[in-house]
């Protein structure tokens, strides 16, 4: 059996990245490098108002004073921010085909399985497709508009709903928040904007699909979701990138504002190119995601399946400001080969009777390093706060690492905080049991890993859950020594 599982190991390691193709699309890429002129150029290309340019420049000047953070349990090679191009537009077209989307572009998203055509209306998901720095198309816009829901690309929102954007942009993640937030605030190119008006339950899943295509570019998108009083929305995010030898930078910001009695569900299946088996190439994924539960009885739920990226630095957080607000974080992070992940969450309890749940499942294989880093903070006035955290790690192979760094800052005597963590490997007994019953080792591992991650996968919307399950078995089957 040992030999058998070793073979399977190898198969997994050799398994090619499915979405690694490059689309041959004419793309307008600006000169590499970063300075105030580049920022002015980006702003100009997007026809942005003066205040937006001011915002960007302020962020840029602040970014210049910062140094790259080194506290994460990651080995990040030096990044030359001057060798990256900060804007790439694949939709630039000749005047003739002004209204049509480049067929090559359509093909790309078709290949990725993203329904940009209304023919796939059956899937009942509205999609905003973003390639490189530009939003390609947003579907179902009209249908949503009838209900008063705004779902469009960020650049469009800045043009058409400047007041809304200006009210909320940067209020959850300020440009002074951290190094990558400052960088993103300076150069962000596109992303999605969602506004759910009072009392509206969004009838379909909203989804953004991010794709990096052009070489030597970075992707810096910014998503802003506002759920007004008594509203509900479920939002999905997916991402892929071509296989390249050099590393590509992705630094995004997601801001979510949840008002009174509103609920937001944010799900991510992150599948950026993780690099090859020797650890060459791959996307550096440095993301700041934060939601502010401003209203009483509001709820925010993060679900993430992290399988891609060479390096992941990501801590989706909840600020539980409203009384009785709830935060949830469900995560499965898989690392293989030379991938590194330092991910987790922050639950900041400020209001009374706030509750948070953290379920984190780490799976490491190959020579990868997988860390959970989380903070639970209960402030002085957050009476009756309740938190439950569970962080489990599964090790597949003897050369990988699994780490847990939870922080608990408790300033209130009525808080009840529980944290548990375990680390283990798939036991020979479990495998033997499956083998006995005619289930092959490879399949058995798939079953066990899926069972292990079930708690999180169950929280994903249907279509995503199936995709995530597939992704898990692709990344992991047979990874037992």
């Amino acid at each position: 059996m040992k030999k058998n599982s070793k073979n399977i190991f190898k198969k997994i390691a050799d398994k090619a990245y499915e979405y690694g193709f490059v689309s041959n699309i004419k793309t307008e890429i600006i000169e590499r490098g970063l300075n105030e002129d580049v920022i002015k150029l980006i702003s100009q290309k997007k026809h942005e108002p003066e205040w937006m340019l001011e915002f960007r420049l302020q962020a840029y000047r602040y970014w210049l004073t910062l140094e790259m953070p080194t506290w994460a349990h990651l080995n990040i090679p030096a990044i030359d921010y001057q060798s990256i191009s900060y804007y790439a537009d694949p939709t630039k077209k000749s005047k003739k085909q002004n209204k049509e989307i480049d067929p090559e572009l359509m093909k790309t998203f078709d290949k990725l399985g993203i329904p940009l055509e209304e023919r796939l209306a059956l899937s009942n998901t509205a999609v905003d497709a973003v390639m490189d720095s530009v939003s390609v198309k947003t579907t179902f816009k009209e249908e949503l508009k009838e209900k008063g829901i705004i779902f469009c690309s960020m650049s469009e929102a800045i043009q058409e709903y400047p007041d809304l954007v200006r009210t909320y942009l940067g209020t959850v993640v300020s440009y002074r928040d951290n190094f990558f937030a400052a960088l993103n605030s300076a150069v962000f190119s596109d992303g999605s904007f969602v506004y759910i008006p009072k009392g509206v339950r969004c009838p379909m899943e909203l989804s953004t699909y991010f794709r990096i295509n052009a070489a030597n570019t970075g992707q810096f998108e910014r998503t802003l979701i506002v759920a007004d009083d008594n509203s509900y929305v479920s939002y999905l995010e997916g991402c892929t990138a071509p296989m390249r030898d050099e590393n590509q930078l992705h630094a995004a910001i997601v801001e979510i504002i949840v008002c009174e009695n509103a609920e937001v569900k944010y799900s991510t299946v992150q599948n950026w190119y993780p690099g090859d088996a020797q650890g060459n190439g791959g996307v550096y994924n440095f993301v700041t995601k934060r939601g502010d539960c401003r209203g009483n009885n509001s709820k925010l739920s993060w679900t993430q399946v992290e399988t891609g990226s060479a390096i992941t630095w990501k801590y989706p957080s909840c600020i539980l400001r409203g009384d009785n607000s709830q935060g949830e974080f469900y995560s499965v992070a898989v690392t293989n080969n030379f991938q590194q992940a330092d991910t987790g969450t922050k639950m900041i309890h400020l209001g009374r009777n706030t509750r948070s749940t953290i379920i984190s499942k780490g799976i490491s294989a190959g020579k990868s390093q997988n860390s959970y880093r989380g903070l639970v903070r209960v402030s002085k006035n957050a009476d009756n706060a309740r938190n439950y955290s569970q962080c489990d790690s599964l090790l597949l192979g003897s050369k990988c690492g699994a780490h847990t760094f939870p922080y608990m800052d408790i300033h209130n005597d009525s808080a009840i905080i529980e944290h548990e963590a375990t680390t283990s490997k798939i036991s020979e007994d479990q495998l033997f049991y499956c083998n006995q019953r005619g289930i092959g080792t490879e399949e058995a591992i798939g079953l066990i890993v899926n069972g292990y991650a079930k708690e999180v996968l169950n929280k994903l919307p249907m279509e995503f859950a199936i995709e995530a399950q597939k992704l898990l078995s692709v990344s992991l089957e047979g990874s037992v020594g």
Partner: protein
Amino acid sequence: MGNEKEYIEIFDRHRQLIEENSAALLNEKRAEAIQKFKASGFPGRKDEEYLRSDAAKLFAADYGMNLGRIKANAAPHDSFTCEVPNLRAHQEFIVNDSYCPPPANISPMPEGVLLGSLNEFAKTHRELILPYYNAQAGSGDSIAQFNTTFTQDGLFLYIPKGTKVEETIQLVTILHTNIEQMSNRRILIILEEGAEANLLICDHAASDKKTLSLQTAEVFLGRSATLNLFEIEETGYSNNRLSQTYIKQQAGSRLNHCNITLTNGFTRNSTKVTLAGEGAEANLTGLAICDKQQHTDNHTLIEHKVGHCTSNELYKYILDEQSCGVFSGKMLIQPDAQHTVSQQTNRNLCLTDCARMYAQPQLEIYADDVKCSHGSTVGQLDNNALFYMQQRGIPLDEARHLLMYAFAGEIIENITIEPIRERLHMLIEKRFRGELNRCKGCTLCKKQL
């Protein structure tokens, strides 16, 4: 760099004085240590390890240092009466940072056992001590380097192969000063193969002046050696302590370490255990009971270097009034340490909404065939249990005391020396009733206060 400069100057200016009053062996390590200290400075809020315990600010006060080794005006052997009934212990004393030689009639240690002043033994047993002194602390943080730079004396304990010391060795450290003073003590413990010992360290203060004591202890456990090490701190609100304990264990050795903080000002206990031989076992326990503005930080790192080792950790905090508790525990499992069993538990009680607890239970695991888990909770006394007791006529206050007493009991039960266990039960009960707000361990203190 702020206060560092002052201390570097003190060292440069008084180097001769320090070296004249210390053994050559201690002096040899100073140059390297001061270099390392210069490079990193005092750790403060910007260091992850000292995030919640700003050590740098402790050094801001203008402390006196006894560099010329002026003898303290105290005869602890005569005036100290241990309040632990029935405890048969061999008592040793360190006043501030100077070892007090015992009277001639003290019961002798078994043959081959060396126990006494580190400074004296460093002169007479240089070859024995050389491979061990600063072997672990040398790679420690800048507080350890500071201690190596300035330390002049402390305790040395050597137990040869196969020797079992039945009698408990009690080291009483007393802060006895009329000025704001800093003391740098050093403890070196070597247990050869199969040796066994019980060591009890009682940290007392006989001064309400602001003091800072730095204690660096290095422990080496040979194959199959067993050490029970208990530390009890009962100082005062103006006494600050930065303690560093480094323990290296060989195959089959066993360590029981218990760290109890009853009264203190600002305390940071750092314990680093290296399990370097297969089958070694380390049990770390700790209890902190804090009120007023007390600050207690227990920082532990257990490194599993090889496989088949076991480690257990259990730390409990009871925080009252505006006190602050910090627990940071890391288990580091190196790539070859397969079949490691490691467990860490941290439980905390916050009694007021001004008390703060910072907990960081951490796992860093590089081996796959291991059983590791950690758990941490912060909560309050069980309301149902309180209600149950009140129903049965136990007043609320009493019921709270009973529950807290039971909460602390789990740690005390781990102490293998019965008289100490009983004594601690009593001390903790007193502590809960607010009767123990200053050290009452010795008549010396009573005279002083």
